[in-house]
């Protein structure tokens, strides 16, 4: 069952997409976006894992065990923090939608036509 971790990542991606398609609330849609983003985190860290590996911290590293991939960790840790503020921006837009139309339901906000 080697590709099981990647199957989990695929499930998260499609689940996030399903959430956006079927959402009736912008806040719910924003959280589904973060679920979709977490599929990339899971894939990144699983790609970087090594069997019997140890964290890439050379202080107090046990000899004989290989270091896990530090590059994917560097990419992921900044992305996680950035996802918070992108979520804050989407929620700010949702708050504006609520202030304009009294609801955060995409159907209620029908400004565009044709």
């Amino acid at each position, binding site marked *: 069952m080697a590709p099981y971790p990647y199957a989990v990542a695929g499930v998260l991606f499609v689940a996030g997409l399903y959430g956006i398609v079927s959402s009736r609330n912008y*806040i719910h849609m924003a959280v589904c976006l973060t679920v979709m983003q977490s599929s990339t985190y899971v894939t990144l860290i699983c790609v970087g894992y090594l069997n019997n590996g140890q964290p890439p911290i050379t202080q107090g590293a046990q000899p004989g065990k290989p270091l896990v991939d530090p590059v994917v960790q560097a990419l992921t840790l900044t992305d996680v*923090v950035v996802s918070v503020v992108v979520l804050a921006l989407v929620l700010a837009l949702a708050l504006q939608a609520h202030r304009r139309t009294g609801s955060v339901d995409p159907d209620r906000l029908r400004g565009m036509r044709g």
Partner: protein
Amino acid sequence: MTALTALVLTAVAVLGVAVVLARDPLRQVMLNGLFGLSQVLLFTVLQAPDVAISMAVVSTVAYPAVLLMTIHRVGPQDRG
């Protein structure tokens, strides 16, 4: 691929789908917290402490704070 890794991966998948399927925003925030926690466990098991700290701090403090304030500001929504 140890049993622990498989267990945590399953938790991540199940919680991720649960977050998507939760329609009530409050329930979704709580599930999102659990989903963040399961990712912290996954990153710890996969030997990525930096990312685990990052996810722990974000999913226990930042996500819930921002989401709860927005949900409270928006007020009860009619169940679609």
